[in-house]
């Protein structure tokens, strides 16, 4: 077990290194002027030279790569061109904002999907409920997330006026975590959160449904049925055993949510990491874009690692090698 964890950790470090290398080539080799990546235009020649030295942009590509790795190892991604402060100062508050819609959205979407998936999986095979359930889930899964966002925004805020159209609300003089516990914040949170739930629910539903269908013909279900417990209790037995793939799916899904939530953040003007990435890219604020990308990639690596470790804990059949 310990050997497995160590091996998986080493593997994760390797993957992070590879992703940083890919990033180096993407940001530094692809733009026509490689120094454009880290240096603002319109600097005086002297300031430019100084920054080039500081950033190790003077030597060969290999020297640059070493300097780049050294900077990243120290967590130094440089300063944002636009905000004129270290990129981490810009990104840290945004991470929390992104997590605010990603984590509850994913969990609620998974829970709702699990309940509905059990219902559809337990329905009569080939019956109306099963067919409609699958059809609707598949169609909703095909709705792009910005279309979900646009629909929610047009119906519930522009037309009905129930929810605000954009942003997170005015924090007023509240600082720190206090600003997240106001009715105003929750009011702003509602629509983007619903958008994430709708986006993730169908995939959960279908996954859960397949699990329940596969489990419902197993012998242990016959046994529970024979004991004479009510139908809903029997379904619960099948549901519990179908949750395993759902739980392993949740971690990578969280990472993908954080990455894919970009579009929802844009539609609802929610100040998160993804939205900042899009802005940074379009304003050519390369240090900021690079750090945001790195952050999202590391989250995926950690989520995959967590999924592998948790799966072994939950499923006694898994043997670590």
């Amino acid at each position: 077990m310990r050997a497995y964890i160590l091996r998986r950790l080493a593997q994760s470090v390797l993957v992070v290194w590879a992703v940083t290398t890919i990033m180096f080539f993407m940001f530094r080799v692809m733009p026509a002027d490689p120094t454009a990546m880290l240096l603002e235009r319109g600097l005086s020649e002297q300031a430019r030279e100084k920054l080039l030295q500081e950033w190790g942009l003077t030597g060969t590509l290999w020297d640059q790569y070493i300097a780049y790795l050294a900077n990243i190892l120290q967590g130094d991604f440089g300063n944002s061109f636009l905000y004129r402060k270290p990129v981490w100062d810009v990104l840290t508050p945004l991470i929390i904002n992104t997590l605010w819609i990603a984590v509850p959205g994913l969990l609620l979407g998974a829970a709702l999907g699990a309940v509905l998936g059990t219902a559809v999986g337990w329905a009569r095979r080939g019956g109306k409920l099963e067919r409609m359930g699958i059809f609707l889930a598949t169609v909703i899964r095909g709705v792009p997330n910005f279309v979900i966002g646009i629909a929610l925004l047009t119906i519930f805020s522009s037309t009905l006026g129930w929810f605000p159209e954009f942003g997170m609300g005015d924090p007023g003089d509240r600082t720190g975590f206090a600003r997240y516990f106001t009715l105003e914040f929750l009011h702003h949170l509602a629509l983007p959160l619903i958008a994430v739930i709708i986006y993730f629910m169908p995939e959960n539903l279908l996954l859960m449904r397949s699990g329940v269908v596969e489990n419902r013909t197993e012998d242990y279900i016959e046994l529970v049925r024979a004991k004479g417990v009510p139908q809903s209790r029997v379904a619960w037995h099948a549901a519990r055993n179908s949750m395993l793939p759902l739980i392993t799916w949740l971690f990578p899904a969280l990472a993908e949510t954080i990455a894919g939530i970009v579009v929802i953040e844009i539609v609802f003007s929610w100040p998160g990491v993804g939205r900042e990435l899009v802005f940074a890219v379009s304003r050519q604020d390369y240090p900021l874009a690079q750090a945001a990308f790195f952050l999202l990639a590391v989250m995926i690596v950690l989520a995959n690692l967590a999924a592998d470790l948790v799966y072994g804990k939950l499923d006694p059949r898994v043997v670590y090698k």
Partner: protein
Amino acid sequence: MTQANSTNEPVAIKGRSWLSAVGQSLRLVAGDSFALAGLTILFAFIVIAILAPYISPYEPFKAMMTETGRLNRLSPPTSAHLLGTTSFGNDVLSQFLHGFRIALLVGLVAAVAVGFISTVVGVISGYFGGYVDDILMRITDIALSIPTLPFAIVAVALLGPSVENIILVITILFWRNGARIIRSAVLTERERVYVKWARAAGASHFQIIMRHILPNIVRVIFLWVTMSVAFAVLTEASLSFLGLGDPTVVSWGQMLNTAFSSGNLRTAWWWVIPPSVALVMLVSSLYLIGRAYEEQTNPRLRVRK
């Protein structure tokens, strides 16, 4: 290989015909009414995409003028403009029809490229195993930890937003999952008795892959290509919606981006609804085809009769 030669070949080497494998796949899909509906919609969309330049009433980027010589902005549907006009005075119907072309062009070309790379990597990795498998799978692991949409955003912004670059980026992103899936299908196929027989009868690796492995995993490849079309369409639409689409062509995501950023979402329903509905129809049809296929090929999900 000549005809005479192939008739003298031992039966064990001959394997399965491609035609029957593909035919079986299509029959599986046609047996499911939802998937059949999906196929019909897909076919209709392809026809519209081909005909788009001939049936659209105006040039997609042409500014329409009113009789008094002013820009015909945000006109609701009229007989001259069946789906109204945009805030720049473009005919929505013409833009919408041209959108079919980009969606399907990106979707189909990227999916074929994804299918090809996934198959090559998956088959080599699964069939040969050992070092080759180790190296290819480590590369796949790394590729899998690249965040999809952020990578697409950064790469398209750096390479420049053009249809070719969008297709390239989508291909780079989606071969990785396919390679994994196809590899595991090859792993089970490789251990089958008929493969061992063919080997014993003197078939080369190439013959085994082409005649025994590939025809039997056609269904897995088919499923992945179908899903890839959907992912490609969605990725292109998302990129265009974020303003990173090819500015020289019209796509549905870009239409929605223009409507959104010009603040006309609520009022100009004629501009927003057609591209949204078309995107949902296209992607859902592909998912319906893929799902039916998955259901039919997984024995544990099949309805027991």
